[in-house]
């Protein structure tokens, strides 16, 4: 074991891992964090805590992570390179680790243009690959990015994201290889709706033997409605939503669409469980956290193993 | 201002509007004497600064008359002129002038009547707008001095 991370232990034990996501509130509302996290409590191994997601100001990822930790759950600290330079990131990593957070996800982050402060200067001192490198170096070599020694280095289980669907497709596996080379221990993917394409991607991943070097958690987001599916298809960059999904949702009445969305998510997980190289699921139910337990139960991923 | 007779500068392309003006003349079609014609080899030769200088020197209105779109003798001189007219309109707008004081007009060499009617309409429009903002303030000044 490289770390004390529960996620690492679950994955190392050969179990399919389940993670979910909690977006911190846009205000000093610790109760909100608790409310959302408690919906997920017994059904997931760890909870991603987003870092100013969609470039909107929110409670800091590590602060919300600590609240979740205090509830006896395991937060995954998300960190984007958009908002901080390498000094600030390293100090936050040490700080978070000092407060009991031992798993993190390294991202570059959405461009400020998309958020509520489009006039802000994006920092991007590092990119996500370099952030992975830095966290690994802090852990394995006990050194800061600048080269100085760290006293009691933070031992983070390091994750990175992968989008199997963005262009150019041929680069996607190569970029994953780059993130693994940089030191990623686990990968959480973009929401998967085009299962055929994802399977093709995973085949390429396995052909290169990358599945033996990293744990891949398949991203699942249940659709609430046909409207949401259309929005995801047309408005969210790098998202691949096949027309069949939209048709299927539109084919039932409005009241039944949420149920149909859950069904699609459950079926996707059942199918992806069989795919070589898939080590677990990252269920991102956007403002719909209460549905996560149901999905976990219906797919036979409950109860979660006790490690 | 009831007797206001505007001074209008018309940059006319040799290949169309200028010839059309000629035709209007030879056919004895009336057009107002307010319009002072400047013949240019192509409206593409009219630069923004020429239009600006016309206003600086006291023109109440300016128009650039070139060939019909797609018919420029030099391929795209009239298109360039159109963009330049827009550029000066933007400057006028920023300065708080009426952009209607400047216009791009297209016609062919055979349109003697269109030349005359355009001159008439434009003159009418400028009469309604009144004298150039430069002139108004200067007239007021003169009056103050006289008072």
């Amino acid at each position, binding site marked *: 074991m490289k770390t004390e991370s529960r996620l690492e232990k679950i994955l190392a034990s050969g179990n399919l891992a389940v993670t979910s996501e909690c977006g911190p509130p846009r205000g000093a509302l610790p109760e909100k964090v608790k409310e959302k996290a408690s919906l997920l409590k017994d059904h997931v191994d760890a909870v991603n805590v987003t870092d100013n997601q969609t470039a909107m100001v929110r409670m800091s990822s590590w602060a919300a992570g600590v609240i979740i930790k205090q509830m006896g759950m395991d937060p995954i600290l998300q960190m984007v390179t*958009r908002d901080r330079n*390498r000094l600030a990131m390293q100090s936050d990593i040490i700080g978070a680790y000092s407060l009991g957070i031992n798993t993190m996800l390294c991202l*570059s*982050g*959405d*461009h400020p*243009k*998309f958020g509520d402060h489009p006039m802000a200067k*994006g920092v*991007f*001192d*590092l*990119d*996500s*690959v*370099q952030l992975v*490198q*830095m966290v690994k170096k802090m852990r394995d070599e006990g050194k800061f*990015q600048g080269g100085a020694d760290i006293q009691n280095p933070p031992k983070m289980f390091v994750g990175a*994201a*992968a*989008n199997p669907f*963005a*262009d*150019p497709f041929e*680069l996607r596996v*190569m*970029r994953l*290889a*780059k993130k693994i*080379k*940089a030191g990623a221990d686990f990968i959480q993917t*973009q929401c998967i709706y085009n299962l055929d394409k994802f399977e093709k991607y995973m085949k390429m991943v396995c052909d290169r033997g990358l599945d033996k070097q990293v744990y891949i958690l398949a991203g699942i987001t249940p659709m609430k409605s046909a409207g949401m599916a259309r929005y995801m298809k047309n408005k969210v*960059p*790098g998202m691949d939503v096949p027309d069949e999904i939209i048709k299927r949702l539109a084919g039932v009445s409005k009241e039944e669409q949420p149920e149909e969305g859950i069904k699609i998510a459950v079926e996707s997980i059942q199918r992806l469980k069989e795919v070589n190289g898939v080590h677990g699921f990252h269920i991102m139910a956007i403002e719909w956290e209460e549905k996560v337990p149901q999905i976990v139960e219906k797919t036979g991923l409950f109860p979660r193993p006790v490690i | 201002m009831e007797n206001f007779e505007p001074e209008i500068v018309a940059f006319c392309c040799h290949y169309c509007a200028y010839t059309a003006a000629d035709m209007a003349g030879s056919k004895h079609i009336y057009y107002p004497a307010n319009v002072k014609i400047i013949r240019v080899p192509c409206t593409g030769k009219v*630069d*923004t*600064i020429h239009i*600006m*200088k016309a*206003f*600086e020197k006291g023109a109440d209105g300016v128009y650039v008359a070139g060939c019909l779109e797609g018919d420029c003798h030099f391929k795209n001189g009239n298109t360039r002129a159109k963009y330049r007219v827009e550029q000066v309109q933007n*400057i006028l707008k*920023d*300065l*708080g*002038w009426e952009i209607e004081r400047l216009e791009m007009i297209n016609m062919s060499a055979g349109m003697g009547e269109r030349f005359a009617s355009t001159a008439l309409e434009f003159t009418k429009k400028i009469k309604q707008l009144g004298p150039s*903002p*430069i002139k108004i*303030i*200067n007239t*007021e*000044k003169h009056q103050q001095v006289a008072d």
Partner: protein
Amino acid sequence: MITAEQKPLKEIIEYISPYDRILLVGCNECVTVCAAGGRKEVGLLASALNLNCLKQGRTIDIKEITLERQCDPEYVEELVSEIDRADAILSMACGCGVQTIAERYKEKPVFPAVNTKFMGASVSQGIWAERCQGCGDCLLGITGGICPVARCSKHLLNGPCGGTSNGMCEIDPDVDCAWRLIWERLKALGMEKRYEEIMEAKDWRPAGGGGPRKIVREDLSL
């Protein structure tokens, strides 16, 4: 070249409103090429400022001069004979030109008439696009001649991010994804392998992170 765009007239007028005699100085280099502050634009701005004053019933004395190179003290010296007849200087050069004038003529206020934009290249007539950020440590040799620092919206050195769609950047469908361009070039050059080499965290000191930059060439100093 350095590109620039004229400031809104309102802002320029505000700057110079307390003054009656203006020295309006253009530059014959970059800003002439990008049609922001050359001889022609100097004439046009002078005319607009003049029109504005005439409308207010006052006169303004604008002297138009376009220097060969406003960022060079040698040429800025040419203003000596004009400077006493001006209350203020309005410069249509890039920020380098404005500062060269400010440094030489300390007793006169100098105002910028353009916004300096970026180092760019001409894409086609009337269109300029950013190509270089002067990071001081050129990467073009390993990125197939396309700069990720200047052309990737997130300056990713190991791109592309997950936001590319149809080969375009997530911030704007009219902006090429720099990493798509880099990848296509590397492929065309048979250098695909290079893509998988991790580009290490960049040292931003030569890019300006080390304070204002300077080049000293002793062999050329007098």
